[in-house]
């Protein structure tokens, strides 16, 4: 392991100031620490943001639920408020990795990292989330740019993620049997006048499947999915699943999600 400078920021301003092109924020460390240990990443500065109180916590208002960036997966999974307002979001958090990962990993870290097979990005898309940073508010559709790529600028810190409470929603995931990340995850959410079908794992970046969404806004039932064409082109292919299999799983899991709504 290469050495680095460790800082613990007391507030968002200090954290942002310490950041450079060669630094990482330390939230749960569940991505950053293994990357450093495996020699996949080296940083000059590691900036701990876990001691910044304002970044953590869950607040429900009438139509939205706002989750602080350093809120851990386990806290979202166990939150009575989340379970009541958006049960599928609590269930998603409960299905991330294993207990050790859920006890440390954070929602902000997860979406900042934007792993193509991470779970939370699909929730952001399906639930019309707004990402609050120290500078601005970003709509989820504009936040996830590509594989491990987001709209975040250097030194920009996610403060919270604000989800719209849907009429109904459900998330279904086919976990990679080895890592338990999503090989394919489908998040279906029915809002007033709109349906989103966010798919993670299948392509290099999370996306809203407009064809499925359209079919479901006309007829919110699993049978509506049957006739939708799902192309495997552009889908990921690896030792765990071919593009063709992923395309099938998008359909199967979209159906399951609708049925479970």
């Amino acid at each position, binding site marked *: 392991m290469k*050495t680095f400078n460790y800082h613990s920021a007391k507030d968002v301003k200090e954290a942002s100031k310490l950041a450079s092109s060669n630094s990482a924020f330390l939230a749960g460390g569940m991505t950053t620490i293994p990357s450093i240990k495996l020699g996949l990443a080296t940083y000059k500065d590691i900036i701990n943001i876990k001691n910044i109180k304002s970044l953590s916590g869950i607040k429900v208002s009438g139509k939205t639920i706002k989750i602080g960036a350093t809120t851990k997966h386990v806290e979202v999974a166990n939150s009575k408020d989340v379970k009541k307002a958006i049960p599928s979001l609590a269930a998603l958090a409960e299905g991330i990795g294993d207990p050790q990962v859920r006890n440390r990993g954070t929602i902000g870290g997860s979406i900042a990292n934007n792993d193509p097979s991470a779970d939370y990005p699909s929730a952001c898309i399906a639930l019309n989330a707004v990402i609050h940073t120290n500078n601005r508010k970003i709509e989820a559709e504009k936040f996830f740019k590509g594989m491990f790529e987001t709209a975040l600028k250097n030194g920009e810190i996610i403060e919270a993620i604000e989800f719209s409470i849907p009429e109904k929603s459900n998330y279904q995931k086919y976990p990679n*049997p*080895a890592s338990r*990340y999503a090989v394919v995850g489908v998040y279906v959410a029915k809002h007033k006048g709109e349906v989103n079908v966010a798919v993670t794992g299948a392509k290099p970046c999370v996306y809203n499947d407009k064809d499925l969404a359209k079919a479901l806004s006309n007829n919110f039932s699993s049978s509506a999915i049957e006739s939708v064409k799902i192309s495997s082109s552009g889908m990921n292919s690896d*030792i765990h699943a071919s593009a063709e299999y992923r395309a099938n799983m998008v359909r*199967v899991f979209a159906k399951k999600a609708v049925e479970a709504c």
Partner: protein
Amino acid sequence: MASLVGSRVERKEDKKLLTGRGRYTADVNFVHQTFAYFVRSPHARAQIKKIDTSKALKSPGVISILTGADIVNDKIGGLIAGWRIKSEDGSDMKVPPHPPLASDTVNYVGDHVAVVIAETLDEARNAAELVKVDYKILKAVVSTKDAMSSDQIYKDIPKNMCFDWLLGDRAKVQEAFDKADKIIKIDLVNNRLIPNAMEPRAANADYNPSTEEITLYTTSQNPHLARIIISAFNGVAPENKLRVIAPDVGGGFGSKIYPYAEEVVCSWAAKKIERPVKWVADRTESFLSDCHGRDHVTHAELAVKNDGTFLGFKNETIANLGAYASVFGTVTPTYLFGPCATGVYKMPAAYSNVKAVYTNTAPVDAYRGAGRPEATYTIETLVEKAARELGMDPAEIRMKNFPTQFPFQQTLVHSVDSGDYVGGLNKAMEVADYKGFEKRKRESASKGKLRGIGLCSYFEACGIAPSPVVMMLGCGIGLWESAEVRFNPTGNVTVFTGSHSHGQGHDTTFAQIAADQLGVPLENIEIAHGDTDKGPFGYGTYGSRSLTVGGTAIVKACDKIIAKGKRVAAKMLEASVDDIEFSNGEFVVAKSNKKKTIGEVAFACYLPGTYGEVKSPLPEGDEPGLKETSFFDPVNFSFPAGSHICEVEVDPDTGETKLAKYTAVDDFGTIINPLVVEGQVHGGLAQGIGQALYENCHYDESGQLVTASYMDYTMPRADNFPEFNLGFTCTPATSNPLGTKGCGEAGAIAAPPAVMNAVMNAIGTEISMPATAEKVWKACNKNKKSNSEAA
């Protein structure tokens, strides 16, 4: 005192292991210790043109950098293949040199090129990045199937073939096949596995310049073997100047039976720099450089009559040895595999032909079951296919061909002393509610799921021993086991065993045996193992041998203790030795009921005198002390057997396979501790099911290991398993006085065919291991299409 043998005594060792108080090699530290980091080959096959260490040597904290040139200079010997196999044409097997640090070529990703020794691990690792190795990259040979027709890896080894071995009689098999009504054929791959012991391999070698002695702490299933190899073959130090200690070891599954390059290099380097050298594998190194398991490509045929009677069997296998012939790498696909391939059946004629090949992948060696899982998978999927093709019930075809007379002379090698295969399968069918399957299948179908059932009846040859037999077959060592039972003067007992516990529970089971034999309470007995300076030479733990061979040595040593105790008690009680009876820890004169406890006798042996008069309790000719040693070499292997029945439920939409029900009925002979045995069966099943459904070692075409982390190598997890239904039958082994047969490998042997037969039964088509969701989905779809085409 009630007998402890057969009772569910809780494992004595669990308290320390479960509370984090185990003491593993990585926990051992010495004053002035240094750290080793290995420079490994990033290429599967390359020539080393030049190694430049100049920049690395200047890196902070670096003490020494050693390469293959230093190995040559110091005349350090290569790693060995421990079992000599001859080809069908009588020629000897071909073995490439395997230096602990490569001299001119590297032959798999992870092969050892150099070692950097520094004051800290970080310094060693950072300097290792600065070692410049100039490689000429060569085309790698990766595929098992194509190895013989690929580029030649070693100058003197044409077709990359180590040997072309035959067991059995081709002509007799041909005769049998000529008489057959039907010939059932199968092509299969036994997928390559990575052992994944919980504790990575490690070594810490300390050199004492005053005594010129090396003490090597290492993760070994077999410290005595490590010592003799590092001493006699690698030439690092004479045996009497090398002490090997294997403290707590966190699992081995075969991968820690023998020493690797790292232990040799650490010991040698410690002597060179006169400081302790410590190395602990990180997980990536474990994936890359622990010996892997299995990796066979097999074509097998079974000749049958229309009524299901077996007439003959052929087995043509290509076995991948990896880049080098490892210690038990050559016996695993031959004598541990070939004889068992005819399964639990009367088979009038049979042969096994195995071509072992070298490839540019990590060496392959024994892995839980070693050869017998491969054998069982071959015959049991073939028999199931025969049942399908003949329209017979898979249980019925098995029953029809089971031997019912024991001892049973198995076709190729073994004389099986005891067993009851019919009774075992009947019991398994009862426990599994075999009759109720059709009803459960309909229930699954109503939920849109495909349910399948699969059987496996197996036997295996384990308890390995007998030395004259294994040495006749090419083994470079004997396989007896030792025990020393030492009464301490105050009456408690230390039992030294040459076997080694790394999860098997010897501290408990062996203590139960000694407690019963000696009539001493369990808590007063200590089992000592894993240190070549404590207790006599032994052969370690693998091949389900420890209890059957090592446990028997304990019984024999206890017998000697009791025999001496009788003589001493007779003198103390002024009786004749013939009148002394021993039971429950007491020596009793039958007629007078006068007695001495074994503790009193032990005390008298160590303090042989009486105050005020010259009088010894020791009979003339008996020496003081109470300590006996026994070396036990059984006359035969032992032959556990059983029948497993698996039920799966497949989701045809996703291909996901769920284990719905698993029944295992095993005959392990006498069971010393059912709790420990059940644990061993559970662990074996987890590994066997892992092979069938999840685990797969995958190299890409260039020889890079794709599944080099837990992100890609699928380990089975607790939530993949149903509650296991276990049952036992018992026909005691006749080759040892305990009647035990060995239980450590059975689960890993029986589960893969039971699971795969169930999957294939569910989806109605053949598929290979592991039956991953995508593979099963594709197979289901293929069927769907062909169904609709047919309709």
